[in-house]
């Protein structure tokens, strides 16, 4: 269920580091207050549009490719500055994170606060494991999102 403050992990558990956002959401569920909703989106990202309409603050967690070392954490505020194009993988999603946020802005349904955490991935091969170092980025994302969401309660 979407709440005022909602965290969404995005990705594909079966494509190596693409699981990063989902893993972070799994860990956040165990440590975040109940007042914060933690959700996972593994398929169609247009689901995010419904979440945007219901929540006031949304934190997205997804794997990204910026050319940094796997596990590097990036933080974006897409309502202030557009997401850099092409850094969030869209291979198995019909719409990518940047497209969905763009649609939400175009329709005027973006939440008041929208933060995107990108966890740098190294391998996205189907069936592969996680890159060394990815776990560090996932943990850092968990700590930062946990602190940011608690500050909003």
């Amino acid at each position, binding site marked *: 269920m979407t709440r005022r403050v909602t965290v969404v992990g995005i990705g594909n558990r079966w494509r190596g580091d693409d699981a990063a956002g989902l893993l972070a959401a799994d860990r956040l569920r165990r440590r975040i207050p109940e007042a914060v909703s933690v959700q996972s989106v593994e398929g169609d990202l247009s689901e995010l549009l419904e979440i945007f309409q219901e929540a006031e603050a949304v934190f997205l967690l997804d794997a990204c490719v910026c050319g940094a070392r796997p596990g590097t954490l990036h933080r974006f505020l897409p309502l202030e500055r557009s997401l850099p194009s092409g850094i969030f993988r869209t291979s*198995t999603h*019909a719409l990518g994170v940047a*497209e969905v946020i763009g649609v939400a802005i*175009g*329709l005027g349904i973006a939440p008041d606060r929208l933060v995107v955490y990108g966890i740098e991935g190294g391998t996205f091969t189907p069936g592969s494991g996680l890159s060394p170092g990815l776990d560090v980025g996932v943990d850092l994302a968990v700590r930062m999102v946990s602190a940011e969401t608690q500050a909003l309660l």
Partner: protein
Amino acid sequence: MKKAEVCGRPGKSRTVKVNALARVEGEGAMVVKIREGKVAEAKFGIFEPPRFFEALLRGRSYTEPPDITARICGICPVAYQMSACHAIESACGVRVEGVLRDLRRLLYCGEWIQSHALHIFMLHAPDFLGYQSSFHMAADYPDAVNRGLRLKKAGNSLLALLGGRAVHPVNVRVGGFYRVPDPKDLKGLAGELEWARDAALETVHWTGAFDFPSFDQGYEFVSLCHPEEYPMNEGRLVSSKGLDVSPDRYEAHFSEQHLPHSTALHSTLEGRVYVTGPLARYNLNFEKLSPAARTAAREAGLDRVVSNPFRSIVVRSVEMLHACEEALRLIAGYEMPEVPCISVSPREGTGYGCTEAPRGILYHRYTLDRAGFVTDANIVPPTSQNQKAVERDLFRFAAQSLGMCDESLKWHCEQAIRNYDPCISCATHHLDLRIERE
């Protein structure tokens, strides 16, 4: 942001290349080479890595293919589940009839509605309206984008109720379902589907008013054909050039071939290029559309036979209207069955299933041993069947559009690929393993 309208002057020799196609499902690329003022080559390459599902299925129980193959695609998992169920049931000598058959058809309606809505509004309409993407379009066409999103949600609601969840449903099994819905829950969706039906009708008129490049082609169309229904789950395989066979004869007439530039296999029908999907279904089954869908098609300017692939967006809208009406009809007649599934015991043999995924026919074949374990499997998705037609369209479209500047030609060629709503991750099959020795 609208597309660039001013671009460079066309030269005699040039290469129009898109390394990573946007607004298609999966990873693909396109190359059109023009030499001395003539099209020399047009390729639609798929480089999404292959996933070897058929090998993965070997040794699995006959009960598992519906759930395993559903994972091939996040957009059309129901198609995989339906083809797998029909193939396994045919191997085991069982037919699912009555209410359970109706529920399968209803589930398929949900998938058609959500898949067509996604493609029409978010992936293909921006091409016709001159936008780089749906998010560039959203600010100028908020009503259309909202309509598309709500239609998609209406389809997803059917999938979630019947399938347990909207993406990769978990409630389908060989013989029927794990659990069937309460009539009250199903009838609770009727109001939104009535809205969806009206919205789909509006969409037929909206897309019918788009500008379409002049590009009628003499395709051979292939679809399922059922004596009483617009085809989804069942029927004979027919073509506009006279093929008429049961799905178990698929491999006697259709063959697959690997080409170096693509990880998806290319299909032919007795050596001929063919087209499957909405255009083929419409052309071969027009009389079985609902009366409202037929009327809407005529009002939108569609002929009885549509051979311009750019008009596929209108045909998809007509099919979406038909699926909404069909869903409402099935819901109105629903009575809860006594059991959610019929018993299916394994037996040694081979079974065949072919159903109509939103993008076209999806063929499955499974061979089972005496204990019910899969010893061999073959899956042919619609995108690999359409791949040759896509390349031929690219070649011919480029040949008739040589006066366009590169930017405009690239735009229209990408649009020509999206006419087929290709699902690239479904189609990938082949590992291009190259060993070089010196």
